[in-house]
């Protein structure tokens, strides 16, 4: 751009090219720049129009609505920070949902992230021919995901003796009567976490696999010259620095997924769950927007959730050394 600027100036005294816009005025110059880059803007336009209409405006509208009482039927009524005050001070259920979500995110987030990274790394150590098979084995649960819940996991953890886990434990004599897995408060969250971890090797995992196989083999040779011999050393000195971009990408997906957990909880423990042991922020939000039509309050919950995710995302950007 700066180059273009000097070019324009040097052209001026000679024979100024005939242009549709008067480039010597600020508005004209801007318009001229837009026209000059018309192909760039034209190509990004469909994406950004869809993005603005279906992502950005809803988010901005949610932020605005969080300061109103709004039930869709009547006009919004300004209430200031009342929604937020109620959220953090009076709504005991929100605090329950908040702590459940945090509990889930703190355990599943890092565990699943490390699983993705190391399974991908291990897969990269295996012969080339086996790689696709391993990738399929680990990625298939993420593909199947929610569909499998009712057919497999609810049968495994069924509360009666028909359940696989109960029947195995009964046969082994470890328990004398069936354990009520899905309605016992202490077991609900751990079961949700196990099932989540099982199906959590998703996009981030694929990104890691691709990242590792994209590492230039010459780098390993160069490292070997510098005395790097073991797999572990290669991981530290070559693989980790080389896969930083994938680490950031996977971290963002991981953070977003962990904090917005909801569907899997209601599928496993029902909604409402026993003593709200599986209530998460997303489910709480859904109650207010979809059931009670208290859109203003639901929007306040959405804003809190978004701020949490963006805040953690910011940390990830810092941690993985991106300029952004």
């Amino acid at each position, binding site marked *: *751009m700066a180059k273009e600027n000097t070019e324009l100036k040097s052209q001026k005294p000679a024979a100024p090219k005939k242009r549709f816009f008067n480039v010597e005025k600020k508005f004209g110059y801007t318009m001229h720049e837009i026209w000059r*880059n018309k*192909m*760039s803007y034209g*190509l990004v336009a*469909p*994406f*950004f129009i*869809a*993005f603005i209409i*279906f*992502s950005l*405006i*809803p*988010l901005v*509208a*949610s932020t605005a*609505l969080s300061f109103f009482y709004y039930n869709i039927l009547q006009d919004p009524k300004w209430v200031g920070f009342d929604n937020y005050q109620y959220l953090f001070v009076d709504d005991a259920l929100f605090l329950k949902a908040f702590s459940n979500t945090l509990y889930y995110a703190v355990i599943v987030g890092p565990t699943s992230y490390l699983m993705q990274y190391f399974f991908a790394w*291990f897969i990269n*150590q*295996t012969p080339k021919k086996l790689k*696709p098979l*391993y*990738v399929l*084995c*680990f990625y*298939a*649960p993420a593909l*199947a*995901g929610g*569909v*499998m*819940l*009712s*057919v*497999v996991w609810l*049968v*495994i953890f069924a509360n009666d003796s*028909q359940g696989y886990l109960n029947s195995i434990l009964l046969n082994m004599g470890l328990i004398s009567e069936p354990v009520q897995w899905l309605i016992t408060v202490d077991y609900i969250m751990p079961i949700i976490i196990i099932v989540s971890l*099982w199906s959590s*090797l998703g*996009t981030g995992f*694929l990104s890691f696999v691709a990242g590792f*196989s*994209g590492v230039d083999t010459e780098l390993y040779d160069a490292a070997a010259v510098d005395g790097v011999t073991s*797999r572990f050393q290669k991981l530290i000195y070559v693989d980790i620095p080389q896969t930083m971009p994938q680490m950031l990408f996977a971290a*963002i997906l991981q953070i*977003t997924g962990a904090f*917005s957990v909801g569907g899997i909880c209601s599928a496993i423990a029902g909604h409402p769950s026993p003593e709200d042991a599986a209530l998460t922020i997303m489910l709480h*939000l*859904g109650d207010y*927007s979809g059931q009670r039509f208290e859109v203003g309050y639901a*929007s306040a919950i*959405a804003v809190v*959730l*978004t701020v949490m*995710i*963006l805040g953690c*995302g910011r940390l990830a950007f810092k941690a993985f050394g991106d300029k*952004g």
Partner: protein
Amino acid sequence: MAQVDLDYLKRAKKRRDVSGKAIAIVLGIFGLISLLPLIYCFSTAFKPLDELFLYPPRFFAMKPTLKNFSDLMAVTANTTVPFSRYLFNTVIITVGYLFAMILVSTMACYPLSKHNFPGKNIMFKTITTAMMFVAAATAVPSYLIINALHLPNTYFVYIIPGLANTTGVFLLKQFLDQVPNEIFEAGKIDGATEWQLYTKIAIPLMRNAQATIIILSFGGIWGESGTAATYIYDEQLRTLGWFMGTIGGGLARAGASAAASLIMILPTIIMFVVQQSKVMDTMAHSGIK
């Protein structure tokens, strides 16, 4: 001297092989564990009624049968909408969405990666931030907008609101960043127009990345049920995913439900297997750095 070096290398190679094999075996075990629920789902889909309620439960079907699938078809026998209609809708929506989304994403990623224009950086920063937006959290404003645009009760409601796939554009852009600019400069010197650079160089180079985006998005759109439940009032326009959800789960309907699950996940997995081999293969040989 040379002898010693050779010996050392041999031993090192042998050692590497041992740990490599150990990794392969351990991974195989973990992979099998990870697949078990899927295999169970697969075998349950073919179990006859008496085996579904066998106690203690069996993992594999002893007398495999297709009855669960015919039961599944029978569910729609009494309704106005046949099973084939749901399947047709889902195929149309999946193809339409993937085509439109890939088109829009491929268009957007090229200037973001290879052009220099005012606002480019803020656009890309917006995309990376937007990957952290949770669409479900802003469902009500989205609902009002989609209604205002008269999208409900058309195929478009499945396609248009999801067009802006931020993760897709991000991945495509990152992929294109790795393609050296010299290729495009060479094209320019040979007299190619900007449009030709885009269609003749950039798009063919992005095939792998496009395949990857299709893999990532396929499951979501093939199993689509939320939009069908919220925005479609005409049962004729609803999807397979929505219909499968109405069958119900748990022990009582385990057979039909497992058959339904299989129909939902099998295309996704086949899609992945087909595209994965392509992606892996081309990635190994493309050598673009």
